[in-house]
């Protein structure tokens, strides 16, 4: 690990100013991804500003009926929160599908959003990777790409975003509150993560030094009828091959409201806008679910080792919608 200075932030504005002023500074949250990357040589910050003791650890109701989640709220606490469990079950389930009990006790809401891909080539500093070292090439395109993207990838990068929580938040239309040198801005979560394009080194639209301070959940009635399903290589404690976050309201046999996002398919949590459009107002039938999934996956471009993800995503979405229509998981 490269040497670094450590400072404990007591004021968010000062922390933002400190990191903004230092190109090689980074915020430290739970550390479950960053500290690992520092050990692997993937990240080499010269200054860590620890933001875990800032006052961002509350889950609070908003005047509009939504919920504000502080960026420092630990994943385990957010998953266990009674309001989240009853009004946004998809979020609780997604959190509980991720990592292990020990890691969820450390990982923060803000840090979870900013965790980086688990692409094995990205984490191996001895091989080329455009995300880690722009212009060096992508080892995964011709390599072992079983875990990689089938939607929205580029010639530069085929990595997938690893977060479960973020998939649920994208389905819920959450808003990310960010503090920068110019003050606060609000980013719809669907716009936070990027597709790789020609700059895969940038996972998100955040500028260096910007700090996530909270995530806001809208008062979304359909979210009470939501669930998360994750397909993985072992029953627990593994990253997703494919995951689906969905919320569904069926009235008189027709889809009244629906939200869908996929994990494991792309460089960002994938909001399934085409599938949603196909389903709104449609009969709540297996045929509608299949057509919606196929509409969303029509542009999928499987690689040598991951073609299985396309039917897996279709089947998982159909199954989850069927379960939600029948009254939930």
């Amino acid at each position, binding site marked *: 690990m490269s040497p670094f200075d450590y400072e404990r932030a007591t004021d968010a504005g000062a922390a933002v100013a400190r990191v903004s002023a230092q190109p090689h500074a980074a915020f430290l949250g739970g550390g479950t991804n960053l500290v690992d990357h520092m050990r692997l040589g993937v990240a080499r910050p010269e200054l860590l500003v620890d933001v875990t003791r800032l006052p961002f650890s509350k889950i609070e109701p908003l005047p509009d009926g939504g919920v504000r989640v502080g960026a420092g709220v630990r994943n385990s606490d957010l998953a266990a929160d009674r309001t989240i469990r009853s009004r946004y079950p998809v979020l609780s389930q997604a959190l509980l599908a991720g990592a*292990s*009990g020990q890691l969820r006790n450390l990982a923060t809401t803000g840090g979870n959003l900013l965790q980086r891909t688990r692409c094995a080539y990205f984490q191996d500093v001895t091989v080329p990777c455009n995300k880690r070292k722009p212009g060096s090439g992508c080892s995964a395109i011709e390599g072992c790409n079983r875990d990689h993207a089938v939607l929205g990838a580029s010639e530069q990068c085929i990595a997938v975003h690893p977060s479960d929580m973020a998939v649920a938040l994208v389905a819920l239309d959450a808003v990310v509150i960010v503090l920068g040198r110019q003050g606060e801005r609000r980013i719809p979560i669907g716009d936070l993560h990027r597709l790789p394009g020609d700059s895969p080194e940038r996972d998100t639209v955040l500028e260096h030094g910007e700090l996530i301070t909270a995530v806001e959940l809208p008062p979304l009635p359909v979210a009470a009828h939501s669930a998360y399903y994750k397909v993985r290589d072992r029953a627990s404690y593994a990253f997703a091959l494919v995951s689906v976050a969905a919320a569904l309201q069926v009235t008189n046999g027709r889809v009244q409201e629906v939200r869908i996002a996929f994990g494991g398919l792309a460089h960002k949590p994938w909001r399934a806008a085409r599938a949603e459009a196909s389903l709104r107002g449609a009969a709540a039938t297996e045929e509608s679910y299949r057509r919606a999934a196929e509409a969303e996956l029509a542009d999928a471009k499987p690689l040598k080792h991951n073609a299985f993800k396309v039917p897996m995503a279709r089947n998982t979405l159909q199954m989850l919608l069927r379960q939600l229509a029948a009254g939930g998981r």
Partner: protein
Amino acid sequence: MKASITLRVDGEQRSLQLDTRTTLLDALREHLGVTAAKKGCDHGQCGACTVLLDGRRVTTCLSLAVACDGATILTAEGLARDGTLHPVQQAFLDHDALQCGYCTPGQICSAVGMLEEAKAGHPSFVTTGLTGAADLSDEEIRERMSGNLCRCGAYVNIVAAVRDAISKGAMS
């Protein structure tokens, strides 16, 4: 870069000077000689280094010691009270819930932390309904303990030990 920190480890106040790069695991093992927390993968994937940090189970290999200044840490060595093993420790012995034993201190700390979480009503991914209090079936125990790998494969007896500890009041 050097830093000075204080930790309360297994009931004892300890002050130490260390490099900021030192993980909590290395601080415990290499600086304080507390070797109950084991180094397995050193990447947060195996759970052998699990301790209770301010009462919650965490892996120590991914925490920087400097960020834990002021924390209270309980390792498997500190679980016994007045010479009597913690019910979870006793259950591991009674059920032969280990072979080589390397993962055992982490398994035990994880089980103790997990039972506290269940007592507080925290759900797991396999909890149905998500609103009731946690009732720990074998499926629940397996899911909640999935962050602790045992390469000897003593899982069957580990589940039995945790189940037995619950029946003997480890959660009450």
